[in-house]
């Protein structure tokens, strides 16, 4: 009970208290509902709201646990209510590995509001001063006498109480988090958990949409005779083509609406659509890749300059030069995008597998010409998302169709649609050059990048933005006197979007692979070289960098680039994996470290040759320093999952373009790592020493692919410069 801090709430000012009810039967008159996150009912139920989307990261355990902690509720006995999309909840965008980081303080303050009122009422009931009571386990207690009153018995009285305008928080939760119950596990293992496709409304039909196969083309005409002849087809509807940059707009195309999914799919196959020409007709990955390779051979736009890199490279005693390629990648969440919409008399009700329910709501309102207040967006479980579901285009499709058909419509993206017409992870070609002096010290560093920008999805932009370079380049604490970072414009062919870890995947792969090449050239090992080139423990500042440092929207005071934390994860994974002992016969290990989303992660991977001669993952060791955490087991689960996700990047992931179209369509040609390819063990060690919360969902991914590529080199002597490896 040491660090009790008082907070001015400012809740009324921010509008948070104005939120009415998260869902239909949220509150009865006798319930205590101080605000939209807490409901204590007279029957003793404590319902807490989760306003972020659950997509496997465990946010429905962690955010409510913080509310429960301050409230004094037992997290094993709470009911979690999923919020609809409503700006009254503040920021609901579930992305950037930041739900806990940016919402934890708010959750605690909101929980404390409830506790203060319940304690006030409880003290009255117990006939003791309010300072003598505490709330825990769903009740208010007078500890000296051992008497307590359950929350439920206080609800009605609490409902009539004024809310405090100031709250005092409890002592901070443990920096290393809690082991929390998984609120939804039982529903998930019994098939009871509801995803969007499981929502069934009276009279609902299903739509499968044939979208333009090439970005920028649209419907010229279509013949639906055969499609309409399939029994069970309700209607065939042309959707409007997007205007201007893609943004979150649907791609247009022709929708087949049918009584059931199978009918919709078969009828859609029978549509004959003529598409307009597109500037991307004829584009191919081979040509685009050649153009990007050619670009990085030349100087680009200077983005960061220190000293004279050109001169220093020219006079270096030894020079290394390598070009790395990461192709376009697909999110490939196992649940393809899906939304259900019902047009009501004066509004629209939508269920969407979305990470951005508020954006879905405003877009639906806009396309239907409705007042936002008349649009409701519900968020069932997401069958994972990885950034794809930050774009609510599919919710808009469902709303448009429900409006036309005047029956509830489910838009079901098929796997092939999701693979070919999503928002892909940006490809990247990066050339790295390093100069070493006579003593082997790094004296020059040049990094040239050709990679499409996500900004191209929203406007006329073709070169990486600072925030994109900030993901693993601008924030690298490289101690090198001469440095140049240059970019080239790239003609994008597809809608480029965020995918888990985003540009960090590309940049970590190139930099950690190249540093490994450097380590071999220097006859040292990567962990030693890393500590040398990152320099001694210190704060890496914009002054030292000679440039602004993009820091995931966080201040560098609160979340500095702490070289000591790099050292710590490097040293700990080195010890954990017994890096300095030889690998077992027939195996080799690779190393990589990366900071992203304010979290430091070092990875060691051990490989052997599989039966077909390719890489076989044997073991992985992960040491992560995310600062404070809430939900310990879910943090581990995210890091384990990140190894598998990163291994798919390393071994299998690649979308290619032919004739302007994505070639891959399903899991036979876009392979995901399988259980028989997964390592035998993944050892995760967490460093949680009390620094502020960093991200968890994404930072585990970037170091995995380079660690695998580096291990493959150690095993075979073959350097992997183009992903995927197999």
């Amino acid at each position, binding site marked *: 009970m040491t660090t009790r801090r008082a907070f001015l709430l400012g809740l009324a000012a921010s509008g948070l208290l104005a939120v009415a009810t998260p869902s239909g039967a949220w509150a009865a008159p006798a319930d205590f509902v101080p605000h939209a996150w807490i409901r204590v009912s007279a029957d003793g139920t404590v319902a807490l709201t989760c306003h972020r989307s*659950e*997509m*496997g*990261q*465990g946010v429905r355990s962690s955010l409510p646990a913080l509310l429960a902690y301050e409230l004094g509720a037992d997290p094993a006995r709470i009911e979690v209510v999923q919020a609809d999309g409503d700006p009254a909840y503040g920021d609901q965008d579930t992305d950037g590995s930041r739900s806990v980081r940016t919402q934890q303080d708010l959750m605690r303050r909101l929980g404390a509001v409830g506790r203060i009122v319940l304690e006030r009422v409880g003290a009255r009931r117990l006939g003791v001063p309010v300072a003598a009571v505490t709330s825990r386990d769903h009740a208010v207690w007078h500890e000296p006498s051992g008497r307590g009153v359950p929350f439920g018995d206080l609800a009605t009285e609490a409902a009539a109480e004024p809310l405090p305008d100031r709250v005092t928080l409890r002592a901070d939760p443990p920096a290393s988090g809690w082991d929390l119950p*998984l609120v*939804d*596990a*039982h*529903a*998930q*293992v*019994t*098939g*009871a*958990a*509801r*995803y969007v*496709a*499981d929502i*069934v409304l009276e009279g609902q039909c*299903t739509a499968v949409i044939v979208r333009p196969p090439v970005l920028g083309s649209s419907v010229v005409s279509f013949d639906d005779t055969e499609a309409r002849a399939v029994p069970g087809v309700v209607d065939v509807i042309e959707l409007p083509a997007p205007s201007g940059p893609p943004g979150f707009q649907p791609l247009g195309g022709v929708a087949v609406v049918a009584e*059931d*999914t*199978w009918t919709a*799919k078969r009828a859609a196959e029978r549509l004959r659509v003529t598409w307009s020409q597109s500037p991307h007709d004829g584009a191919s990955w081979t040509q685009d890749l050649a153009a990007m390779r050619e670009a990085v051979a030349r100087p680009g736009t200077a983005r960061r300059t220190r000293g004279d890199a050109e001169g220093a490279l020219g006079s270096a005693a030894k020079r290394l030069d390598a070009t790395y390629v990461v192709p376009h990648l697909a999110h490939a*969440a*196992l*649940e*393809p995008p899906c939304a259900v919409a019902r047009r009501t008399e004066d509004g629209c009700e939508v269920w969407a597998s979305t990470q951005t329910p508020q954006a879905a709501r405003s877009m639906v309102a806009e396309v239907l010409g409705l007042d936002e207040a008349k649009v409701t967006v519900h968020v069932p*479980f*997401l*069958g*994972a*998302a*990885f950034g794809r579901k930050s774009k609510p285009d599919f919710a808009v499709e469902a709303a448009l169709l429900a409006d036309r058909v005047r029956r509830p419509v489910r838009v*079901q993206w*098929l*796997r092939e649609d999701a693979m070919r017409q999503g928002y892909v992870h940006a490809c990247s070609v990066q050339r790295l050059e390093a100069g070493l002096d006579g003593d082997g010290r790094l004296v020059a560093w040049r990094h040239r990048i050709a990679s499409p920008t996500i900004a191209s999805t929203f406007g006329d932009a073709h070169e990486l933005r600072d925030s994109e370079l900030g993901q693993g380049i601008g924030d690298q604490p490289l101690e090198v006197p001469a440095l140049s970072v240059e970019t080239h414009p790239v003609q994008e062919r597809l809608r480029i979007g965020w995918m888990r870890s985003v540009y960090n995947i590309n940049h970590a792969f190139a930099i950690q692979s190249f540093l490994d090449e450097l380590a071999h050239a220097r006859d040292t090992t990567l962990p030693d070289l890393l500590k040398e080139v990152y320099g001694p423990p210190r704060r890496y500042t914009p002054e030292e960098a000679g440039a602004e440092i993009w820091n995931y929207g966080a201040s560098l005071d609160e979340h500095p680039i702490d070289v000591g934390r790099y050292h710590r994860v490097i040293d700990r994974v080195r010890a954990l994996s017994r890096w300095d002992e030889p690998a077992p016969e027939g195996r080799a290990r690779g190393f990589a470290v990366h900071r992203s989303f304010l979290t430091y992660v070092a990875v060691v991977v051990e490989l052997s040759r599989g039966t077909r001669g390719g890489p076989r993952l044997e073991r992985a060791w992960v040491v992560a320093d995310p600062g404070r955490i809430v939900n310990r087991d*879910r943090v581990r*689960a*995210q890091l*384990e*999952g*990140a*190894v*598998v*996700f990163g291994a798919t990047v390393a071994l299998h992931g690649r979308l290619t373009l032919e004739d302007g179209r994505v070639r891959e369509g*399903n*899991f*036979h040609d876009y392979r*995901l*790592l*399988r*259980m*028989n390819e*997964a*390592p*035998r063990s*993944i050892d995760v060690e967490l460093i949680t020493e009390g620094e502020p919360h960093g991200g968890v969902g994404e930072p585990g991914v970037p170091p995995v692919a380079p660690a695998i590529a580096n291990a493959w080199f150690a095993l075979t002597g073959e350097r992997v410069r183009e992903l995927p490896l197999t």
Partner: protein
Amino acid sequence: MKLVVNGVEHTLDVDGETPLLWVIRDRLRLTGTKYGCGEALCGACTVHLDGHAVRSCVTPVARAEGRRVTTIEGLSPDGTHPLQLAWERHGVPQCGYCQAGQLMNAAALLDEVGAPTEEQVDRAMAGNLCRCGTYLRIRAAILDAGKGR
């Protein structure tokens, strides 16, 4: 046609070529069984046909006629199949979307071999994708549940 799913007999008027997956989901409204690929490439739609794991997305419903179909909803009456318990103990699910298929596939494996070895688990489960990457926990949970056999 008559279809027996989880011990309940249904009489349906449906084209025999329709994949079992869509009959289960769209007609019977048993939504625990998931669509992931439609091409027998991911395992999300795994159900049992006379106790054997099949991919319902490529199984014409006609093939299920006169046989016992079991879906995740019928794996146990109250969610206490040893695998379901092990899944909860090991904190397996992340997004959960693949897990019904994983469980059904694993249940058929346990019925077939009792206590599988790690290699048998890997071989049997190789067709069930999990994009969230829960494989190590699935493996551990199956081995754990198999021990009790």
